[in-house]
């Protein structure tokens, strides 16, 4: 039975999104050769198109692609064997006819790509390439860096994996939780680059969605790790607000002023359910997810349970002191107890070096001063915040608040 070309292409694109990591990982596991894996995975997808157009889409496209890549790897190794007499390698591939469960393959791959001995930017690039199947061009566009830079980072990571002996595996139980933290950090970094990119005012949904896909994968394959669910929940809840975050001119809309009917209900429902499961175990991501869930559950901003949110920030700060988290807590205190309490909470922070030059510190002060009616002081603080804003959208937001103060400012 033949299939229409459009349908074949659609299935193949879907398989690329879903199966690239499994195909790539299979060759890495069998050969330990990351360059060969790249070559064989690309070859398998290239050959799938004509083959599927001719013979129809296979019942299990993923298994077809894995087999195609494995066979090519075997061919290459056989050729190398005759060249170099390395019989053991080809024998190992031959022996491994039985494919590993796809989930295991992806998890091994993601842990290896996120190994802490690799530079962080190399971990991000390699994870997106090897696990996510993004091309170097796509990664370069997403991070607004040159394609050469991305290629260099990926190449360096692959070289270090081989030369330094980074094993291709899920770490043993003793080290797994610790290493998982590094994996989740890479995924969160990919997400924040898509959600609040460092260049400013546009959100890159594709990157955020890729991060959610990775978080989903890790949460599904490591069900005994509440932090993995915590991260997935946090990403889903943040992503649920994407349509409400920007106004018509690309300006940021704060949580308080967002049109909550524009939040993605399906993501909210899933995110809240996950937050409830993950929160009791209480890692940083799970607690942040619980905070996001509190916002998601309030039908209007005024109905937010600020007392509950302050309590969650207290739990977060008990895990690790963090001035940025403490500043967010000060805002929640202000919402619960009024602007003077907010100002007191901000003053209690002192001037930690982590907040030096941070735009949020003067802005939070300014908001409290505005609500206290101290217009002139508020204006001064908004000007400071505006002068250190990291991008145009945020600077515009402070300019808007400044203008709203009216003549007294």
């Amino acid at each position, binding site marked *: 039975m033949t299939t229409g070309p459009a349908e074949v292409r659609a299935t193949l694109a879907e398989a690329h999104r879903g199966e690239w990591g499994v195909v790539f990982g299979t060759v890495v596991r069998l050969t330990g050769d990351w360059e060969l894996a790249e070559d064989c995975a690309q070859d398998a997808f290239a050959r799938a198109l004509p083959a599927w157009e001719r013979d129809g889409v296979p019942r299990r496209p993923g298994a077809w692609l894995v087999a195609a890549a494995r066979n090519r790897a075997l061919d290459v190794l056989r050729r190398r064997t005759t060249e170099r007499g390395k019989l053991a390698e080809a024998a190992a591939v031959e022996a491994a006819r039985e494919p590993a469960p796809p989930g295991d393959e992806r998890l091994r791959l993601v842990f290896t790509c996120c190994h802490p001995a690799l*530079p962080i930017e190399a971990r991000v690039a390699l994870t997106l390439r090897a696990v996510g199947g993004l091309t170097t061009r796509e990664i370069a566009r997403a991070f607004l860096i040159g394609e050469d830079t991305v290629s260099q980072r990926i190449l360096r990571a692959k070289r270090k994996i081989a030369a330094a002996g980074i094993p291709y595996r899920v770490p043993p139980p003793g080290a797994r939780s610790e290493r998982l933290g590094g994996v989740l950090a890479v995924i969160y970094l990919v997400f924040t680059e898509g959600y609040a990119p460092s260049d400013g005012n546009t959100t890159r949904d594709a990157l955020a969605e890729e991060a959610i896909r990775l978080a989903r994968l890790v949460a599904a394959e490591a069900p005994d790790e509440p932090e993995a669910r915590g991260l997935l929940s946090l990403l889903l809840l943040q992503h649920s607000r994407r349509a409400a975050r920007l106004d018509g001119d690309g300006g940021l809309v704060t949580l308080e002023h967002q049109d909550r009917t524009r939040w993605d209900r399906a993501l909210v429902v899933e995110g809240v359910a996950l937050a409830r499961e993950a929160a009791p175990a209480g890692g940083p991501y799970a607690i942040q997810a619980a905070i996001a869930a509190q916002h998601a559950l309030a039908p209007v901003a005024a109905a937010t349970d600020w007392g509950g949110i302050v309590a969650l920030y207290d739990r977060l700060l008990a895990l690790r002191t963090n001035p940025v988290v403490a500043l967010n807590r000060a805002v929640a205190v202000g919402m619960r107890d009024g602007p003077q309490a907010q100002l007191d909470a901000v003053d209690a922070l002192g001037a930690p070096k982590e907040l030096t030059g941070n735009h949020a510190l003067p802005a939070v002060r300014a908001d409290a001063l505005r609500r206290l009616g101290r217009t002139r002081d508020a204006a001064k603080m908004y000007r400071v915040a505006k002068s250190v804003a990291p991008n145009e959208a945020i600077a515009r937001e402070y300019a808007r608040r400044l203008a709203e103060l009216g003549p007294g400012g």
Partner: protein
Amino acid sequence: MKYVLFVATDPAGEPADENPEAWVEKWNDRGVRVEGMRLKPVTETTTVRVRGDRVLVTDGPFAETAEWIAGYDLIEAADLDEAIEVAASHPMATGGRIEIRPVEPLDLGPGTGNVPHEGDAPASRFLGILRTDPGAPSFTPDPAAVAHWVLDGLASGRYLGGEHLRPVQDATLVRRRAGELLITDGPYADVQEWVSGIVFIDGEREEAIDYLTRCPMARSGIAELREFWTDLS
């Protein structure tokens, strides 16, 4: 895989009360640790460089860094994760920092291998630490000249062995701070002059210095002569 661990000091280190002997025993018993020795303070370093016809011998290390190498260990580990486990369990991961460097086998021809020595008895009086020098004019040591230098050293008793290391891009740094294990990419100190190899040199200090001035790698890089603690009592 073979790895060299550089045990380095760190002013930001934390007090560690475990003793290094227990660490040595544990990894020796598992057949992971091959050998290792402690070095005298870095202030006693002699630095050797050869630039063209000029031989530059100076007192002290090539650069004043807050962190300095206090010893080395050679291990044979299954992979980097095991090497990290070995490094992380060292008291100096807490009190200092440990750099893990994969060894790159270098075959300079017959008869140029390391001189076997037993256990932890210091095999030589000195350790030569070879570094790259980005400031030096580019110069590629001729493998034949290196082989000649090694064979010459073996004959005179100056050279007892050495390890050639993979580039610094393959280095991994291990620290333990506030009970947390920190694993990062990179060497023990943030300098351009990274360690490319180590050699074991025996004899009197003047003889060792003389031998290093003839080292082909000293023409393009920096050779530091460090003395081992030989009195281990």
